[in-house]
């Protein structure tokens, strides 16, 4: 039964994609992720299914990592499905959002439960290529961003394809379990770094990312930044030979690139004027941290056992928080309920910064424990980067303008997932306050103050800034770039009050459907809390 | 009289006499005569296949004094081709000449021509050969004049003069042989002739005469005007059969009688001439503006192919490989006979329908005359040497002999010749399949189209799939000298 559901989780979205032109409700898309959610919650670990007749023989299995990825991934997919605008669901809509969404979901779920390289690759390719339709938009710039994304994705696919061939001939088996019987060829290592490096946006390979993140529709960005980006990371976890002696070149290279990513993301992100692009560069910075950790783990076989699960936790945390931030930003930019969205977004940002008593902080503690005093400087740097970027993000939020429409359903769903994202229950035990954890935040605060001073002094940030290292998007005018007129405190309070009343009035007429979502989400929360 | 050897000669001769006496029924007599000679030839071939070479001494006199007729594999094959082709052409001619006042003349000459051909293929001694050659040449010339135009008369006159010259040379050669060896019986001569001045001179004279008749380059100049200006059925027979008769004689002389005399160099000379003929003939055919002229030059080229075999045959040791090569030669000659006659008949149909045979104005042929266009295509396939025609097999073996003997020089000749043949054939087909009104409206399939397509089918399918018969028959020889 479990095996059947294992097979169904990618199959159902696939089949739905075939008939997507008839599905005019977003609830179909929502439901497509249900088998995956079931697997994440109740799937029996270790259940496998082998389909020898499918392609070159496909193997699916559910291990702990896969289960966690499924659970949190499925939630983001479900949440994102609610953000698909109604006009994209109509028959004859341009852009094939439904199809792209379902196919990308199928690919993502397939690669998570893949037990062999080929299945992983197929899922990865399916996801990567279908995401084109999630980025594409009718505007010239969106089309260009989608095209750039596609070129990078194709190069990544082909690098991965070649790596797969080399690995297969090397180990004579497609299964991950039998992958590293022999030492891995150097060329395969390079290709793996390249192939997944594009997906996780290593510096130099990140050029597709800012355009895609700023111009894609919000559900597309949420998915790109969450489940899809982490698929690259999962790829490394699956393919790289952890715990085996290896040429230190690769680990060091990855470490170096990762650090470069952290710094690049921080430096460029600080000068962005669109909150979305700040988040985009924050992703680059964050993924740089992951890459550096993976590089470290590669070079320290002894520490792998402790380190990898924690990296997974960190990844899952980011997988939840980053899409939440994007979607929250969307709500903020469209929403009338913005007054209390800001604390929620701040909470998410704090979690992403690794603030104590949030999930992010907890995972960070775990990481520094697992690292055992190594790489403290990296965590410090990562902390500063995160804090600076998030501060910049919040600052931009605070100053950005708001429009006058919002969608109740998406807002309620978002709010439901929020606590999960911040305090994902997998890290309760790390929930403690450590003075050292505050150190990077304090440093960031100092830096910010210095920056503010310099800004006042030299008017630094008012110059139109090019995004460094981004040849693709240098012509892109920044979205909400124009500075918001100063508003007196009194005016602000008055406006917030008005909003509050309006918002409250709307809550009175909450429909049956919305309550159903609430109810579902509540059940989910309970289930999560009861797990373990 | 259980020896059937006399019939292939006697039947057409008697029919010719009848046609002369009864001109109003000449068409029926001609057709019947052709059919009966076909039957006679089939009778002879059955006997040869069953019991080997057969011989008939006319008048009961022993060979050497009287007229001897002999039939072996080679002659049976040539007989079969000539009788089948002439049968088909006769059917065509019965339509072609149905309203002509020269009908009876045609049929008499036609039957005489067949008689001469059959006699030539069956003759067992040299003097008989001379006589049949002369008869063949004369009847051919008169037939070629039947077109009646000024050009055709001029061409026929040239043909006549050259033919006489050739016969004379042949006769002198025969005389020399008689002086030298005291006999004209070929079987006896095959054993007797040795290399010596008499033999050299005699062979050169006889071959020289025959080269004119077979229109080998550079003695080919008479052929294109004569063949292209004659009436269509006559052109068909001239190209397909009369030229082949000369080639047949050269083969007989070189392979059976004078095999001791023939040197590699002499064969090489003929081969080189053949090679030039292939290239030159094909090239000019490619330039030709008229259909029949193209066909005539194509004949020059095809005859060249036959001569390419001579140096190879001379270089091959006697035995299976040589028999294979010889069989290929015969097969090529047969295929060409069928294909070229089909080609000329088709050209005749087009010419009658369109009133001209300018290639560039043949657009619409495929629509108006699909069967004839199909015939041209099939015949073209055989001329190029593409499968499934007999010439494909022959070319294969020709190439094979080239590789075995190591005479690489022929390889480019064959290759370029094939490509040129392809070029001129498909140039014609390109025009024929193009849309246009050059040929007039579409009509139902006429009786005159059928013989041509049958001949073309014989060249491509029959000789392609049942060609092994040729190689079975060729080794059956009436002469001690070897394969021929």
């Amino acid at each position, binding site marked *: 039964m479990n095996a059947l559901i294992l097979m169904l989780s990618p199959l159902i979205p696939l089949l739905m994609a075939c008939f997507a032109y008839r599905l005019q409700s977003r609830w179909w898309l929502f439901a497509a992720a249900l088998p995956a959610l079931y697997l994440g919650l109740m799937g029996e670990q270790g259940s496998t299914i082998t389909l020898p007749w499918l392609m*070159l023989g496909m193997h699916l299995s559910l291990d702990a990592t896969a289960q966690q990825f499924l659970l949190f991934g499925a939630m983001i997919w479900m949440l994102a499905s609610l953000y698909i605008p109604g006009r994209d669901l109509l028959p004859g809509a341009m852009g094939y959002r439904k199809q792209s969404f379902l196919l990308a979901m199928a690919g993502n779920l397939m690669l998570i439960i893949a037990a062999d390289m080929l299945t992983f690759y197929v899922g990865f390719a399916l996801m990567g290529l279908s995401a084109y339709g999630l980025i594409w938009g009718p505007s010239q710039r969106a089309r260009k961003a989608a095209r750039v994304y596609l070129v990078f994705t194709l190069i990544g696919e082909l690098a991965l394809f070649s790596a797969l061939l080399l690995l297969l001939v090397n180990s004579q088996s497609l299964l991950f379990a039998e992958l590293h019987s022999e030492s891995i060829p150097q060329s395969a290592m390079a290709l793996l770094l390249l192939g997944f490096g594009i997906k996780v946006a290593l510096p130099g390979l990140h050029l597709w990312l800012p355009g895609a993140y700023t111009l894609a529709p919000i559900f597309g960005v949420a998915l790109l930044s969450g489940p899809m980006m982490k698929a690259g990371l999962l790829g490394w976890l699956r393919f790289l030979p952890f715990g085996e002696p290896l040429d230190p070149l690769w680990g060091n290279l990855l470490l170096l690139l990762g650090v470069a990513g952290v710094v690049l993301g921080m430096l460029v992100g600080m000068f962005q004027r669109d909150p979305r692009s700040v988040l985009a560069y924050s992703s680059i910075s964050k993924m740089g941290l992951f890459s550096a950790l993976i590089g470290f783990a590669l070079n320290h076989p002894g520490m792998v056992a402790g380190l990898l699960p924690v990296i997974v936790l960190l990844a899952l945390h980011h997988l939840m928080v980053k899409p939440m931030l994007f979607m929250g930003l969307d709500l903020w930019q469209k929403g009338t309920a913005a007054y209390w969205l800001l604390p929620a977004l701040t909470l998410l940002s704090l979690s992403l910064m690794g603030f104590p008593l949030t999930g992010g902080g907890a995972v960070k503690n775990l990481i520094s424990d697992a690292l055992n005093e190594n790489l403290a400087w990296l965590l410090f740097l990562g902390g500063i980067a995160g804090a600076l970027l998030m501060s910049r993000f919040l600052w931009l939020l605070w100053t950005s303008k708001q429009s006058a429409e919002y969608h109740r359903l998406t807002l309620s769903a978002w709010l439901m997932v929020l606590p999960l994202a911040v305090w994902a229950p997998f890290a309760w035990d790390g929930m403690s306050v450590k003075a050292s954890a505050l150190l990077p935040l304090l440093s960031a605060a100092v830096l910010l103050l210095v920056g503010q001073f310099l800004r006042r002094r030299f008017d630094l940030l008012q110059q139109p800034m090019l995004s460094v290292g981004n040849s693709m998007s240098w012509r892109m005018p920044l979205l909400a770039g124009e500075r918001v007129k100063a508003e007196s405190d009194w005016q602000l309070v008055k406006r917030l009050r008005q909003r509050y009343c309006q918002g409250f009035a709307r809550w009175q007429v909450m429909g049956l459907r919305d309550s159903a979502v609430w109810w579902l989400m509540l059940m989910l929360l309970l289930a999560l809390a009861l797990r373990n | 009289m259980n020896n059937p050897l006399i019939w292939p000669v006697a039947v057409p001769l008697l029919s010719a006499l009848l046609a002369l006496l009864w001109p109003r029924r000449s068409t029926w007599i001609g057709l019947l005569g052709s059919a009966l000679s076909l039957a006679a030839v089939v009778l002879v071939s059955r006997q040869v296949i069953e019991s080997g070479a057969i011989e008939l001494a006319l008048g009961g006199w022993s060979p050497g004094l009287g007229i001897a007729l002999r039939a072996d594999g080679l002659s049976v094959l040539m007989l079969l081709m000539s009788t089948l082709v002439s049968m088909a052409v006769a059917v065509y001619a019965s339509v072609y000449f149905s309203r002509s006042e020269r009908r009876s003349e045609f049929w008499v000459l036609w039957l005489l021509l067949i008689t001469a051909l059959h006699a030539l293929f069956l003759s067992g001694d040299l003097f008989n050969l001379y006589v049949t050659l002369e008869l063949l040449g004369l009847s051919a010339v008169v037939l070629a004049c039947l077109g009646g135009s000024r050009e055709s008369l001029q061409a026929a006159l040239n043909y006549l003069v050259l033919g006489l010259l050739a016969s004379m040379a042949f006769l002198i050669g025969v005389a020399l042989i008689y002086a030298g060896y005291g006999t004209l019986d070929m079987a006896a001569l095959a054993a007797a002739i040795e290399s010596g001045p008499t033999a050299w001179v005699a062979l050169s004279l006889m071959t020289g005469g025959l080269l004119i008749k077979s229109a080998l380059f550079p003695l080919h100049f008479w052929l294109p005007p004569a063949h292209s200006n004659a009436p269509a059925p006559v052109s068909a027979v001239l190209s397909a059969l009369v030229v082949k008769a000369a080639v047949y004689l050269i083969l007989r002389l070189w392979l059976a009688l004078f095999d001791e005399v023939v040197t590699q160099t002499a064969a090489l000379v003929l081969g080189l001439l053949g090679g030039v003929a292939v290239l030159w003939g094909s090239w000019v055919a490619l330039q030709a503006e008229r259909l029949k002229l193209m066909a005539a030059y194509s004949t020059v080229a095809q005859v060249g192919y036959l001569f390419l075999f001579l140096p190879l045959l001379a270089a091959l040791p006697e035995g299976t490989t040589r028999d294979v090569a010889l069989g290929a030669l015969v097969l090529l000659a047969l295929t060409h006979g069928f294909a070229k006659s089909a080609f000329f008949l088709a050209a005749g149909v087009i010419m009658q329908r369109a009133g001209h045979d300018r290639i560039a104005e043949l657009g619409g042929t495929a629509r108006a005359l699909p069967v004839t266009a199909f015939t041209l295509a099939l015949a073209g396939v055989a001329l190029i040497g593409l499968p499934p025609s007999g010439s494909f097999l022959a070319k294969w073996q020709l190439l094979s002999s080239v590789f075995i003997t190591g005479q690489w020089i022929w390889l480019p000749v064959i290759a370029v010749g*094939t490509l040129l043949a392809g070029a001129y054939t*498909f140039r014609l087909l*390109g025009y024929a399949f*193009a849309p246009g009104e050059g040929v007039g409206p579409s009509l139902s399939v006429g009786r005159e189209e059928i013989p041509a397509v049958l001949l073309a089918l014989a060249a491509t399918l029959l000789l392609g*799939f049942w060609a092994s018969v040729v190689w079975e028959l060729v080794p059956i020889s009436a002469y001690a000298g070897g394969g021929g």
Partner: protein
Amino acid sequence: MMAMSVWLPVGILLSSLIPGVLIFFQPEERHRLRTWLNLLGALIKLLLVGMLIWGVFHEQVFETRWTMAPGLEFVLHADALSVLFVSLSTLLWLVTTIYAIGYLEQTPHRSRFFGFFSLCVTATVGLALAGNLFTFVVFYELLTLATYPLIAHKGSPEALRGARIYLRYTLFGGLLLMIGAVWLHTLTGGVEFVEGGILQTANLDQSTLRWIFLLLIVGLGVKAALVPLHGWLPQAMVAPAPVSALLHAVAVVKAGAFGIVRVIYDVYGVEFAAELGVLTLLGAVAAITIIYGSLKALSQDHLKKRLAYSTVSQVSYIVLGTAIVGPLATIGGLVHLVHQGVMKITLFFAAGNYAEALGIHRVSEMDGVGRRMPGTTLAFTIGALGMIGIPPVAGFISKWYLGLGAVEAGAAAWVLPVLIASSLLNAAYFLPILYRAWFKSQSAPWPADKTAGCVRELPDALLWPPLTTAAMALLIGLLAAAPYSPLEWAELIAGREYRQ
């Protein structure tokens, strides 16, 4: 049983030859009879091929011999490799016939067309079943003859010109092939196709064998459109769509590629050929062809021309797989023989549908066509994605095995870059088409809208063939590891080739 083993190969030939000949003699207006003859022949052939597949799988011997001349035997022999090609041609013939019936409705000269169409398939099947080099040459030339009228079918000056160019190339190629074949024949006394090759034990002069190899490959390379012998292929796209489809997918181009496979595996023997050092050269030529064809395709605006250059590139995958020594590369090359056929025929059907329904001949006219003709465009999309090598469409399987074979043979350093570059280029010339079709909206009126006001996209006979072949392309990729799939069959062949 004995009789069947002799008659089955002949029957397979006759099942298209006889309808073809009969159709020639049908008057133009007897549409129904002609259709029945065609379909009957195709179905009978399918049935017979089914029997053949079963028999060959169980190692039965099917052989017909006929002596045509001393030392020259006409041999029809069914081994695993021929079955692969025969079943491909038979299946696609059936589909293409249906398509052609729909496509050529109300046009002149249909009897002629279908007659030659059947002859063309007969020649292709004959090529596949040829048991020795001689028979192969016979059918190779016959194929040239049967295809020429099909290319020239429209009778327009461009069609005649295309056909003439086609003929120039193929006659030249056929001649070289014949010379090479005769040469080899005189050296060995008969060239039967035997799994594993016959020459390694023949103890012949190696440099002679290299020359012969060159002759044979150049002769076959003309039809397989190896650079620089490919010039005819883009010109031949003036033919009607069903002809182009068959030409690119099964008949001509594949005949060349199939011949190269035959020569290397069943005449020379792949290891012996590698020993002679000729495979490196062939591999290089194939690599150049792959890249060159893709580059040329990039700059074509004419849809069918772009597809034609794509064929130039894709067919050399087969040659590449053959030129790499090792069972995996062999599997890749062989399976691509089938996969490329199915995918490319889909693309050409779709291109024909665009031209037929809306008068679209150029890529730049395709904006928004996906909305107007979703079925056709879906088929086109599947074919194009397969060509790029995106899983799970069939093309991916070929690419996978080719790459694996290259890695296994230690040739990864140059083969993988070629594969990758080619895939990228394929993406670069196919994806813009898909983009235009699906994502752009119609920018100009259709050049010639013939289906305006119709409820349906196209008549069934035009719509279903591309959808069927697209589904096939998807299924043989998805079910590659299932029994009797092309991949399984290619593995069977490779197993037999490397058994020695």
